């Protein structure tokens, strides 16, 4: 789930890591009570500064997505269905925002973009 960490993005690495985990929790990929890798493991696996891993977990803790149990590690918290849905909506908005921006750059009109979106969505639902 961390494969898309991009050190070149202007989004700080810690925010990217927190984001990936938030998405995984919102989508149910990570279940409540499930332990997350330790800071040491996370830093070594992603080859990032341990401080970055700590900051990502702190961010998630502030959002109420994970809890830090003293001496035991970091665990996924029970997140309400509403909250998970909100997170998914927020992700959707972000996706669309970047898509619209990219389309603008390419000179794709809003109408063309919407048509392409409908087409893709239609193809998906028919599969």
């Amino acid at each position, binding site marked *: 789930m961390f494969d898309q*960490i991009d*050190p070149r*993005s202007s989004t*700080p690495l810690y925010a990217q890591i927190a984001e990936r985990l938030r998405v995984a929790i919102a989508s149910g990929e990570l279940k409540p009570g499930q332990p997350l890798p330790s800071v*040491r493991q996370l*830093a070594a696996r992603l*080859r990032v*500064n*341990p401080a970055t891993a700590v900051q990502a977990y702190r961010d998630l803790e502030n959002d109420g997505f994970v809890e830090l149990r003293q001496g035991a590690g970091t665990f996924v918290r029970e997140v309400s269905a509403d909250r998970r849905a909100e997170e998914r909506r927020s992700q959707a908005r972000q996706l669309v925002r970047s898509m619209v921006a990219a389309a603008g*750059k390419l000179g794709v009109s809003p109408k063309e973009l919407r048509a392409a979106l409908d087409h893709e969505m239609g193809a998906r639902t028919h599969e």
Partner: protein
Amino acid sequence: MSNAIETKDLTYRAGKSFLLDHLNLRVPVGAIYGFLGPNGAGKTTTIRLLLGLLKPESGAIAVLGQPVPSRVREVLAGTGYVPERPHLHLSLTVEESVRFHRAFYPTWDHAWAAEQLRRFGLAPDRLLRQLSKGEMGKVMITLALAQRPELLVLDEPTDGLDPVVRRELLTAMLEYVSDRGATVFISSHLVHELERVCDWVGVLDRGGLVSEMPMQDFKNGIKRLVLAAPPERMDQAPFQVLAREMLESGNEVWVVRGWRPEMLSWVQQQTRGLREVQDLDLEEAFVELLRTARSGSTRDPGRPLATVMV
């Protein structure tokens, strides 16, 4: 002690030619500090001065709160050093090297060293002379980390190594920092490698420090702006323009430093032709910075651009 390494007007001359010119470094405690610079910029010389292997011509050095070179033994007792080229006794075996090295460090963690060598797959009876470059790197990092140092000084630790070994070395270093919270000073001309790892960056070129700041500021502060038409007035630009380039399309590309998101409105006010604000990766930012430093056109943010604008 808030800085693990601090130099004040550090100057060094070797013969007449090479010079470290009034270098002012500040490496905060707990930072992973990437010391970037092209080959020959003076990175290794700086490191040798920090560890008392060379004597400065003038200026002051403090490492781990101790003045260098006068109290360099205390500094070395708390510092793990991996030099650019292997420095160990090549006629000893891996195990003999460990025994030799640990005799000098009362803080030596024997169990950890043995475990790490096993994980690296280094047979204790191999002669150092027979090791590959990567295996030698593994021995050196193991020795440096098993000292349990407060400060790690790594001089181009992964230069010329294959990606697998490079990763293993970085992982060992990061695990140590996770466990111990040590300060790391790592020099490299391989910018990509440091992009994920470092939280501070110092850029050295031709013996002078071009820039020193937190990684996030470094990366976010340098942007490429694509403009359809240059603004009418540039004399109050809140950022510094490092480079300007005309494209065949008629667009103009600026590389700016000291960028903050709120400056977008200023640009939009000045010109309606702003097409794009592009992110630069560390390497691009590094190259732009060096290019400008060398052409000598570095200006303070906010200074007028009149000489360039015609």
